[in-house]
């Protein structure tokens, strides 16, 4: 398997200490990786470092031979992020929000036209159907949607971007157990294969141990350090105690 993302000796400092402390790991194409750890362990910082929105104070992050501190538009569109706060544009409708995923491939005129009238509706409908939503909500404002619907629209936007690597920051956070399971399956079953039939790579932060079995590998962080990095079947109670325990 080809190495897509490499994180080498990364440190991120903050006033309250190191958010990331000498992180070294790599992720290969097609891998499904769960990123776990208690609150404040550095999961969100690691994902932000991986997509280039947070620059490390020390160390390197390499995406396919390019440093993420200097990624071009072409490389950035290959990394899709599902943010914890979703970051939908509240002033726009569902179709226009889904089209935000395609901005990397389009010019300014296309962006302006989309604000005048949602365009490429077939592509938007396709993404919406993949996440289990009816196309009738294409013209609804995202501010009018329920929490679960908003989550799905954000995933549809990600699909429209067609990334090779998906970084998902606690997408199951604040969802009830049934909806969380549903969204996870939707994610793993409907979004992980590209239009060309290639497997996408996934790095998802989450808390629910019962879901870890759906992943190939589990990386655990504690106080900004990697304390566990093994296949998911190796994750036992002892490892969980190490990750979430106070010691």
């Amino acid at each position: 398997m080809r190495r897509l993302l490499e994180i080498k000796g990364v440190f991120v400092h903050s006033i309250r200490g190191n958010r990331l402390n000498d992180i070294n790991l790599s992720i290969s194409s097609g891998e499904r990786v769960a990123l776990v750890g208690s609150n404040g362990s550095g999961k969100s910082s690691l994902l932000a470092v991986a997509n280039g929105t947070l620059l490390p104070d020390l160390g390197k992050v390499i995406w396919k031979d390019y440093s993420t501190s200097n990624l071009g538009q072409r490389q950035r569109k290959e990394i899709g992020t599902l943010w914890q706060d979703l970051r939908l544009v509240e002033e726009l409708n569902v179709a226009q929000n889904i089209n935000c995923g395609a901005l990397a491939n389009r010019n300014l005129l296309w962006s302006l036209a989309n604000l005048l009238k949602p365009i490429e509706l077939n592509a938007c409908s396709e993404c919406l159907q993949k996440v289990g939503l009816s196309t009738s909500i294409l013209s609804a404002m995202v501010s009018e949607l329920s929490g679960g619907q908003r989550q799905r629209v954000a995933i549809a936007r990600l699909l429209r971007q067609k990334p090779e690597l998906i970084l998902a920051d606690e997408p199951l956070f604040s969802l009830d157990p049934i909806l969380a399971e549903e969204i996870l399956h939707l994610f793993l079953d409907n979004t992980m294969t590209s239009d060309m039939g290639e497997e996408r790579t996934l790095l998802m932060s989450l808390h629910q141990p019962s879901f870890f079995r759906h992943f190939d590998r589990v990386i655990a962080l504690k106080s900004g350090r990697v304390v566990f990095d093994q296949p998911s079947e190796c994750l036992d109670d002892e490892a969980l105690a190490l990750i979430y325990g106070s010691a």
Partner: protein
Amino acid sequence: MSRLSPTPPILSLLPALALLPVLISILISFHNGGATLLWEFICAAVHPSIQAEVVQSAFRGIQITFSTALLSWSLSSIFGICLGIASARVVWETFLGKSWPATVIRRLLAIPRSIHELLWGLLLLQMVGLSPWVAIVAIVIPYTSLVARVVSDQLDTKDRRALKGLKQAGAGSSSALITALGPAMGPVLLSYVGYRLECALRGATVLGVFGLGGIGTDLQLALQSLQFHDVWTALWLLAAVMFSLEQILSLIRGYFKLSKNGIWQITTILIVLLILCALSIPWLNAVDIDLGEPLHWSPLPLPTFYELIDAIHTLPWIQLISSTMLLTVLAAGIAIGTPPLAMMLWPSQLGIAIQRIIWGLLRLMPTPLTALFLMLFSKPSLAVAALALGAHNIGVMGRLLKEGLDQQSDNHLKALSAAGAGTRSAWLYGCFSGQSRSYLAYAAYRTDVILRETVVVGMVGGTGLGWQLIESLGSFNWAQVIVLIAVFTALTLIGEAITDRLRYHWTGSTKKLPMVVDLQS
């Protein structure tokens, strides 16, 4: 989904299309020699005159303008706060259980508000002759009404549960009102009253352009005699005062923000207003402006009914009203659409920094002077008037947009940039979209202001009701003056009602003045 459904960001950008007909029209009428004058004007910016008499004159002018603004601002703020309380429904309902007196006062206050300070100035000039009081009273009348409106609107939109609770517990009406509504009014008054001082300074400068003294008169004389170096001496001095004022107001707001005691804030504001009011009178005397000079009262001759009917029949109403409306639409389009368009096209840090400087200069230049400047290389026309009025308001809208963008989180921008969106698209979707709704709400309010300001450029640009008013005033045709003012008042009140509805559409409340909210945050 087949119909057009423009979103707030595109609705904010589309008005910039008004630039096209305006610029084409100005380019067509561009005359030889204009380019040379334009170049001379630009070069003079870096070589302002430093001759002693020019600097002294500008320094005296700025003192007259500033002290006039200070006195009229403090008076209008004190009167405005009192009238605002008197026109608040909640106050009357608490004392008498009925709100109709508030409605009557509000309706009466709408008339002085709808007439621009310049018009008040010209009318007062006819009545009392050239006196320093003309400029002061001309500003005090509309500003009092504007402050009163904001104060009463803010009082009426506050949550009344605490007030009801206090009344039920047996508190007196005055104590209940002060305790329940007073604390929340402190920050509102602080931000809005401070903002009005900047407006008063601009208003006093504009009145000066029309001969009422101060830096405006210096600017107008220098520009008309093509002494661009002298123009820039006065402009840089005005810029220094404006900038210092903005900084001082920002510091005061910051200091007051630390205090959560609204009643203390209101008390301090009132004390400061009284002190400044008292200080500005000796300051004016110090620059040889004698406020004790007797006024030469000559009341305007009231026209007969037949003269009024004759005036109605004589004036070309369709042409006057349509040109005023067209002027408003074009100027508002330029003012609303240009700042986001420029920021979208040049969203880099350097681009934004350059735009801020340009907006600062546009805000600085009084509208009639911009119109006079444009007429150095173009014929007087509606396009010139629209560009002059639009340019000044670009400065105001640009500043407001930048402040709004600075206060919002950049999470969306980061998200779209990380997903590979181009800088311009990322700015449009991730940055401007979040501000577009409140920007449009403020734009609606600004359109209202622009309609009122058409009087100023109409006179210079030779178009609309403003131009006709100056013509009628010049020929002492009082019947036409009265009819024209009545029509203009009606137009501005209709405009106010329409923009109120638009504000409601964008913010969910007609009472919520975006400007007050923005300055507060």
